[in-house]
């Protein structure tokens, strides 16, 4: 059996940062397992810019950001095993994997970092009625075809969902000569970053239909026509509002799901709100020595934040390997209150880890002029911050001094709205 001090599952931005940080913190015997033939993950197909402003203090494209980290990791003793699929992990930190050279592998680890990322929701997940022709893709699939494999997926395009990948693909398809007829969003607000509405839609006069959705798909062989309807406040289509679009392609940008099959196989506790593992502020999961970071934990907007979180996971994974680092047992649970859809971390260890911690969260509606408050069990306000704009599309964070939480088993994070 192969054994390593640390095994990192997934070689995207989270895995590369976690491995690099663990190495910098003293662990030299590290393996990254990646199922693709290169590391860098989704960054390889995100050829647009806007990455790296926080971490590298300059604006990079996705491939450049991946390359920087790949080069950093190349200068270490971290081993990378590509084209290898992990099939399962156990709470005892045994990893079962397979590849075409070595066949079936059992790998032992003192610590594991889970960094498998997320996947896209598909047509099946949102149950659009109608025919099942070719020409319906998730936006990320189309992005890979176009940017890496060199295939143009269509000429007349409608995009459902205003997530960032959908917006980026609206611009990308336009630049390559396609006509993007509309971006359709079921919610009354966009799910992408504001800057992407500006530079991907407004720059190219692509209309955004808020409170609309696709209600029918028509096509024999290839997509021919879709129907778009307005929805009411319960997201139910309003009869009589149908619009027909003559198009050959429908791209779906309707959400991302953390890919946690392996997490579940190890018996790790999952938070149904974030769809990722329940973690402490050191990124450790409910199974000792197993850490999680990046989009497998909760879906991020910015890779820079993935990097920061993963650096932290790598650092504490290193401490776990080198120092028999353990949780103190004196913890505070963070619960979500009004207008907050989830928090990460969900548990804060008051003794172990760092003296302060960031708590990341998302609001569940558009809020103008909100106050973020942290309250104790008895309603005492421990912390409050005003914020002019809060959007579900933009992850928020507050930094907490752990002293503030002393003596509280549970605190609640909410936003008045």
């Amino acid at each position, binding site marked *: 059996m192969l054994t390593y001090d640390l095994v990192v599952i997934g070689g995207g931005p989270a895995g590369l940062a976690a491995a690099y940080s663990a190495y910098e913190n003293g662990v030299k015997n590290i393996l990254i397992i990646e199922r693709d033939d290169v590391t860098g993950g989704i960054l390889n197909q995100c*050829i647009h*810019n806007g990455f790296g*402003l926080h971490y590298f203090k300059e604006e990079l*494209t996705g*491939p450049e950001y991946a390359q920087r980290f790949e080069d950093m990791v190349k200068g270490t003793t971290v081993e990378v095993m590509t084209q290898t699929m992990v099939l399962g992990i156990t709470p005892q930190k045994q990893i079962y994997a397979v590849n075409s050279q070595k066949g079936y592998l059992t790998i032992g680890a003192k610590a594991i970092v889970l960094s498998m990322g997320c996947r896209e929701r598909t047509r099946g997940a949102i149950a659009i009625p109608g025919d099942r022709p070719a020409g319906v893709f998730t936006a990320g699939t189309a992005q890979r075809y176009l940017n890496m494999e060199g295939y143009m997926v269509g000429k007349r395009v409608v995009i459902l969902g205003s997530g960032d990948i959908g917006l980026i693909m609206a611009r*990308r398809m336009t630049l390559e000569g396609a006509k993007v007829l509309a971006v359709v969003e079921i919610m009354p607000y966009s799910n992408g970053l504001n800057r992407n509405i500006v*530079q991907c839609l407004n720059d190219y006069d692509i209309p955004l239909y808020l409170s609309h959705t696709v209600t029918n798909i028509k096509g024999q062989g290839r997509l021919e026509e879709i129907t778009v309807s307005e929805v009411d406040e319960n997201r139910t289509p309003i009869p009589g509002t149908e619009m027909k679009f003559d198009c050959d392609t429908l791209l779906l940008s309707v959400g991302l799901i953390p890919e946690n099959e392996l997490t579940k196989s190890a018996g790790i506790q999952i938070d149904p709100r974030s769809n990722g593992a329940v973690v402490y502020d050191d990124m450790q999961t409910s199974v000792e020595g197993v850490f999680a970071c990046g989009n497998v934990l909760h879906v991020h907007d910015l890779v820079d934040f993935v990097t920061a979180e993963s650096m932290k996971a790598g650092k504490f994974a290193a401490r776990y390997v080198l120092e028999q680092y353990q949780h103190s047992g004196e913890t505070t649970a963070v619960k979500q209150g009004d207008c907050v859809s989830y928090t990460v971390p969900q548990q804060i260890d008051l003794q172990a880890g760092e003296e302060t911690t960031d708590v990341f969260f998302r609001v569940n509606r558009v809020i103008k002029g909100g106050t973020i408050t942290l309250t104790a069990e008895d309603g005492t306000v421990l912390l409050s911050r005003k914020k002019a704009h809060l959007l579900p599309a933009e992850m928020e964070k507050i930094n907490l001094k752990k002293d503030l939480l002393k003596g509280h088993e549970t605190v609640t994070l909410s936003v008045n709205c």
Partner: protein
Amino acid sequence: MKKELICIVCPQGCRLTVEEKDGSYQVSGNTCKRGEAYGINEMTAPRRVITTTVKLEGGRCPRLPVKTRTDVPKELIFDCMAKINQVTVKAPVKMGDVVLADVMGTGVDVIATRDM
């Protein structure tokens, strides 16, 4: 004249207000210097970085990701794309290699964004 803009310099997306008075511009709502420059440029001569791909021969992918090293005038985006789409590159390529110099006379080079 007053105009509300969303800054696209970084993902923070600051809400800018640009006010014109006798040909000079006053930017507010920005949280960095680059935001101020963006606000003024956007009113006078908007510019964008183009990120796209070119044909790659002999690499692990058939496409090489590229970008304009800095921003180019917004109205030249489609002309630049037409020029970039004529380029074929042979592997190996290093990140930062120039694949097309001075695209459309803008003085801006198109460079590779990944080793391939």
